[in-house]
């Protein structure tokens, strides 16, 4: 009796299986929310249209953060934009991924010494894939997306989990740089 070949799966294993199936769907249907903050956004039209045709990977643009899976940050982020970006990121439904495009999201790029532009995006929200370059080639952008799919497959694209786990650290960074995330003045009533 001790050599039972067919043992029942435990609950964790069942969950893991389901998660893997879900990952298959998620990586083949990545809907982007394009937060076109800077000049790198110019690389997206060729990536979407007939030259590189993003749709063949199952990717497509979406209108609101609730519907989207991937947050695309294309270029520099000023303080004002970062506030909105964090708000938008928190509105997305999980699992959610972030792709940072261009040098500005990595280390500030040519705006590294500006008083209004942040230097490093992953201090404030978790970034799954960076695409370096100022600005990156369209091939590089496409490659970044393929990388993201590979990461999802190997279960490494878990930035959104990090955001939950290290929420205090992220919040502290946000407050250090921004003062407060949700501003309130005469234009917001």
């Amino acid at each position: 009796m001790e050599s039972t070949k067919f043992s029942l799966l435990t609950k964790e294993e069942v969950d893991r299986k389901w998660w893997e199936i879900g990952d298959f769907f998620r990586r083949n249907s990545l809907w982007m929310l394009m937060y076109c903050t800077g000049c790198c956004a110019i690389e997206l039209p060729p990536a979407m249209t007939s030259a590189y045709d993003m749709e063949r990977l199952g990717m497509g643009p979406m209108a609101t953060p609730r519907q989207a899976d991937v947050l695309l940050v294309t270029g520099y982020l000023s303080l004002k934009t970062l506030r909105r970006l964090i708000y938008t990121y928190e509105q997305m439904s999980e699992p959610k991924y972030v792709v940072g495009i261009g040098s500005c999201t990595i280390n500030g790029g040519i705006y590294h010494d500006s008083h209004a532009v942040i230097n490093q995006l992953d201090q404030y929200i978790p970034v799954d894939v960076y695409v370096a370059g100022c600005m990156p080639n369209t091939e590089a952008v496409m490659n970044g997306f393929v990388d993201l799919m590979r990461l999802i497959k190997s279960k490494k694209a878990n930035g959104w989990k990090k955001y939950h786990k290290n929420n205090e650290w992220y919040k502290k960074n946000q407050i250090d740089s921004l003062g407060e995330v949700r501003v309130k003045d005469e234009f917001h009533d």
Partner: protein
Amino acid sequence: MIISILMGISVAFFGFVLQTSIAGVNRKIIGRVQKRYGPKWYQEFLDIFKLLSKRSVTHGWIFDFGVIMALGGIIATAMFMPITNDLMAFPGFDNFFIFVYLIAVGMLGMAMSASGSGNPLASIGVMRALTTMLAYEIPFMIIVLTIIKLTGHSSLSEIAMFQQTAVAGLEFSGTWFMIALPVGFAVAFLSLMGMLGKKPFETYIAPAEIASGPMVEYGGKQLGMLFIMHEITVFIEVSLFVHLFLGGAENIWIFLIKYFLVYTSVNLISNVNGRFKIDQVVVFFYKWPLLFAVMQAFVAIYLGWVI
């Protein structure tokens, strides 16, 4: 009764699978038209199952209840739909008006849920959807009135049978209404484009303008359910059209071919169009389509001039 209901559920499921695949194929076709490679043909399935696997947000019980009501209403509508002459769940009760009004339950559920999300863009989208509905339904209903008056039946399968075989005693029988009422067909085709929310009339979705209108607050499973609802709605509307104008179907292959042709031609036409403003939609439908519909109805009913 139970068997009929199970049959109805399988019709609804068939409609979902069929329309989702054909929508995927159509995305590929449109991609090729635009000199792209296009997505996989099963891309729509991936999208829907992905949405169902995500963790969404909810804005209160009405937000969820509306979605359930929407999907439930549409599934119920699809259950009445005949597919071929004898493949249907409830023979004799596939009344045209059931489809027109039971579909409205789904629409109402969705509108309710969207308004319940508290987003003004959703309310604007609902307003536009209802206004568009007011525009396209009336020319369509006039043409359907003509058809029902000519055939003497309001049951879809009876109308389809009427078009398939020429019976000696019945006038006009044996020709598709697409040929018998050419003007009416054109009007109904325009209305179909409005019904499906295809491009000159997709004012209520308008992603760049009002952030996809009623769907602005949905994500995850609610959006997935609304996608399923949308696919089944399209199935109902296109097969309604097939039965009314293209003579229904003797067997399932003919149905598939007719269905594919209607949906693809709608899609191809819509892809070369821009988008109307909402008042332009109303004015458009109340100008020529309504006039032509009334002319066609008058000519066919009172003068008996049918090709």
